[in-house]
């Protein structure tokens, strides 16, 4: 190598001409590919130094969908803020909402379609074109359908953008095997239990802002953050509402509580039954409401009459006096009481009954349609457009829970447990195609080894996501999706003003892009484009109803005489007068004939859960204010706020075990499964001795998530013992037990 030859000298040598002569021929394709630049006269300096405000953003750092504006400078999103026009979150957004900028510009984001030329689980990626990717997805999915039928495909969706793909595979392709874990394994149980009791799914529709008492079962608001929901809660507290929190741990909500019920985990239904039994026996319930709207009250009252305060005190490990105090507080403030239905309720595999009990307590106190009570708001309507239901009958016929005559109160979709078992055993039929959309089942479904087994036996695995989460390591073809800040969405957010005490208003807020998706250095697409292209290639093109996400939004808005143009004029949010949300009573199925007929307990029933084996404590998990499950793990700003998930341990136990605050530890569960990674101990009197707590959503195993990889412990990796809720088929995820490991030594937890 001619070390002495400098660039300048080279440019003057005779060999230059020969050397560069051939070069220009190599740019032949540039006419096709185009240069990345265009000529543009320079505008006066400073004209773009200031940001401009773009409206119409809808946050998706979690799924509360706060309305946003973006501060954009020369095409770059600089800052996110709440949309001042919002009557929901207003100008407030949470830490995660702010950190959306970091998701948009995360260097680890998926950028191009890729093909796995290595192995599932140990991928080697090769960038491919969209055509190549879609052709291969279509051919291979079609191959599965031809060989095994549409039911041979399982879809694992999550998020607004996954609805269109989910409906395509369910309605047009005809597979019943849809596992929407964020719903099914989370809120689904609550919804079906409330439907069976009050006839409606409850959402989080309690009027906390105007309540005299608020009752939370495991709710840890402040750690669990949804802006307008928190506004209601905090307004209620500000107005002097009594706060009762049932939790084995001193949570953020407990810190504000008037009564902290330090309950033994898994026994909540016993606690609720004792309260109801006491209220009935003492005549402290809403007799008028129950007489007018209660069904099967006699059988109910009789059926729970064994549930004495004493029995519950022993079962739940709380003082009898305290149970009575809770019951009396509720009765004294009824009907203006918020009995919160909860949100993530898949705890112990006896969860449907607990949710039924909460709904019955709501009815018993007559706290429905009244100030402070259970009050579904009256939101606006919008138009509808989507896939035709061509294959619903086929899908229903092959629904695994129907075939097995199990889980008759299953939320929509098929229980994940059945999909996975069927895939692994091939019985009653083969499931050989996997379509993942924004969901990371590695961290959302217990028993990771079994999930991986399911993936390994697939003929084809296709995953579409924004970030390289754990599941993407198992994809054959990996597709990069636009983030919520760059796309339109077929989902239109709507609702009412957050405080029902304010003048009644409704809002309609479609997601509009805050920054352009057009780029030459990456090629991401939205789900409508991707699925349409796939549908065409699979031979379903004729059923496509909308050509683009934008057209979909236009059509939905047109249903109520609105348009994107109009929404832009209205700063992203359309407001209209609302209706009085109060005054609507609901019938209460205290005794459910429907449940009895299906062979389940017709009145809420407490089913004991397994006790921790000696030396172990129960592992429970919850939320951190700076994370949304594992979706936000890799966000550098959020990670910086809480780089790992400390494991809460009772201080007296810690002393006996020789553990100190901040010690680095690992965990091992009852089946001998060890955490892949380590975390630190948080020593505190604020947790029961039989319980260990940590925030969910840490310890990703995909090293492609360079910020999050290996940080903290993945709670899901320790949840290997399954507890399936008999009514719904959802997994309870708090029946696993752990010990600590420090410096390789296993430490038992004293009772």
């Amino acid at each position, binding site marked *: *190598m*001619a070390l002495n*030859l400098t*660039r*300048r000298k*080279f*440019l*003057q*040598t005779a*060999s230059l*001409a*020969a*050397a*560069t*002569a*051939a*070069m*220009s*021929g*190599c*740019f*032949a*394709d*540039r006419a*096709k*590919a*185009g*240069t*990345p*630049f*265009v*000529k*543009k006269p*320079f505008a006066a*300096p400073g004209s*773009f130094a200031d940001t401009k405000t773009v409206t119409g953003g809808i946050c998706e750092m979690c799924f509360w969908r706060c309305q946003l504006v973006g501060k954009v*400078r020369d*095409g*770059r999103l600089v800052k996110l803020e709440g949309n001042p026009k919002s009557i929901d979150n207003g100008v407030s957004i949470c830490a995660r909402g702010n950190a959306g900028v970091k998701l948009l*510009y*995360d*260097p*680890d984001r998926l950028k*191009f379609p890729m093909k796995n*030329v290595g192995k599932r689980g140990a*991928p*080697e*990626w*090769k*960038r491919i074109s969209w055509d190549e990717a879609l052709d291969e997805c279509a051919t291979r999915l079609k191959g599965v359908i031809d060989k095994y039928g549409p039911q041979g495909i399982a879809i694992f969706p999550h998020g607004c953008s996954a609805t269109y793909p989910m409906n395509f595979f369910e309605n047009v392709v005809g597979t019943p095997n849809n596992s929407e874990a964020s719903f099914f394994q989370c809120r689904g149980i609550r919804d079906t239990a409330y439907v069976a009791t009050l006839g409606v799914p409850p959402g989080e529709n309690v009027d906390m802002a105007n309540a005299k008492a608020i009752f939370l079962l495991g709710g840890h608001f402040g750690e669990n953050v949804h802006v307008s929901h928190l506004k209601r809660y905090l307004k209620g507290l500000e107005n002097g509402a009594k706060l009762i929190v049932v939790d084995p741990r001193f949570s953020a909500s407990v810190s504000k509580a008037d009564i902290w019920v330090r309950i033994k985990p898994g026994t909540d239904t016993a606690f609720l039954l004792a309260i109801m039994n006491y209220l009935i026996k003492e005549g402290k319930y809403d007799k008028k409401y129950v007489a007018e709207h209660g069904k099967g009250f006699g059988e109910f009252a009789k059926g729970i009459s064994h549930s004495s305060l004493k029995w519950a005190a022993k079962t739940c490990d709380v003082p009898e006096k305290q149970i009575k105090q809770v019951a009396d507080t509720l009765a004294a403030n009824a009907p203006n009481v918020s009995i919160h239905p909860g949100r993530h309720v898949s705890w112990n595999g006896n969860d449907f009954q607990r949710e039924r009990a909460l709904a019955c307590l709501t009815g018993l106190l007559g706290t429905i349609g009244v100030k402070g009570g259970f009050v579904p708001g009256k939101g606006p309507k919008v138009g509808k457009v989507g896939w035709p239901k061509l294959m619903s009958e086929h899908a229903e016929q092959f629904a695994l829970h129907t075939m097995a005559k199990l889980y008759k109160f299953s939320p929509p979709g098929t229980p994940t447990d059945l999909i996975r078992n069927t895939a692994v055993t091939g019985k009653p039929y083969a499931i050989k195609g996997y379509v993942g959309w924004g969901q990371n089942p590695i961290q959302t479904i217990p028993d990771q080894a079994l999930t991986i087994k399911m993936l390994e036996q697939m003929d084809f695995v296709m995953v579409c996501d924004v970030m*390289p989460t754990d599941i993407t390591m198992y994809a054959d073809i990996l597709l990069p999706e636009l983030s919520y800040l760059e796309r339109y969405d077929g989902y239109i957010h709507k609702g009412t003003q957050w405080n029902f005490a304010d003048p009644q208003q409704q809002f309609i807020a479609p997601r509009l892009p805050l920054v352009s998706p*057009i*780029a*030459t*250095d990456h090629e991401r697409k939205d789900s409508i484009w991707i699925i349409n292209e796939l549908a065409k290639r699979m031979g379903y093109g004729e059923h496509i109803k909308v050509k683009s996400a934008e057209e979909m939004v236009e059509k939905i808005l047109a249903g109520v005489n609105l348009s994107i143009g109009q929404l832009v004029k209205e700063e992203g949010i359309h407001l209209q007068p609302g209706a009085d949300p109060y005054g609507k009573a609901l019938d209460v199925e205290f005794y459910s004939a429907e449940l009895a007929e299906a062979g389940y307990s017709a009145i809420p029933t407490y089913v004991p859960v397994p006790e921790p084996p000696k030396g172990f404590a129960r592992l429970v998990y919850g939320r951190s204010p700076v994370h949304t499950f594992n979706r936000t793990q890799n966000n*550098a700003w959020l990670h*910086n706020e809480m780089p790992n998930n400390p494991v809460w341990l009772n201080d007296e136990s810690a002393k006996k075990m020789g553990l100190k605050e901040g010690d680095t530890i690992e965990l091992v569960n009852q089946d001998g499964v060890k955490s892949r990674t380590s975390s630190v101990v948080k020593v505190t009197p604020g947790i029961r001795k039989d319980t260990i707590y940590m925030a969910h959503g840490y310890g990703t195993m995909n*090293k*492609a998530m360079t910020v999050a*990889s290996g940080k903290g412990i993945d709670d899901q990796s320790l949840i290997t013992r399954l507890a399936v809720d008999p009514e719904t088929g959802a997994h309870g995820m708090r029946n696993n037990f752990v010990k600590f490991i420090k410096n390789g030594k296993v430490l038992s937890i004293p009772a």
Partner: protein
Amino acid sequence: MAQSTSSNMADIYRFLAQSLRYPDSSWLQAEYFSALDAFLVGLGWDAEAASIRRSISESADWLEPLQVEHTRLFVNAVPAVIAPPYGSVYLSDDGMLYGPSAEKTKLFYHEQGFDLVGEADIPDHLTFELEFLALLVEEGKSDEEEFFLAHHFRPWFPKFKARVVCETRHHFYRVIVNLIDFFTREEM
């Protein structure tokens, strides 16, 4: 420098930018390799020329390994993408994409009368910067070229280059980043 050398330099910048684009058969043909070969030989980089000749002639299927390597180095990889080809990843404290330095680079493009075609293009992408240098050369803006190299390109390129040189499994990319280094390095 004479006019002809300047336009040669524009060709060289473009050639280098092209060399880092995704390797596919639309441009990665015998024609490209013979140009590269002649170029390296002209520079006296005979060993490098030989190493590329070898790695390309070693197997009939030489394209896919290059594509896999390009993806692994610059796009997405397990365990981690080796060398994101974006300046601010190396210049901001937290490895941010489209960090403040990238905004400044875009501003400089504007000041020189150019804009990127894609509204969401990340301005400090390596190939954009090289293409932009070619444009400056063509417009005879050698002071601006030197300024851009000194204030926008060189502050990060050596860090990027170090990662590629030390991690790549393919001679091709080692040679190309060394070539870029050679043609953008400051000379006394």
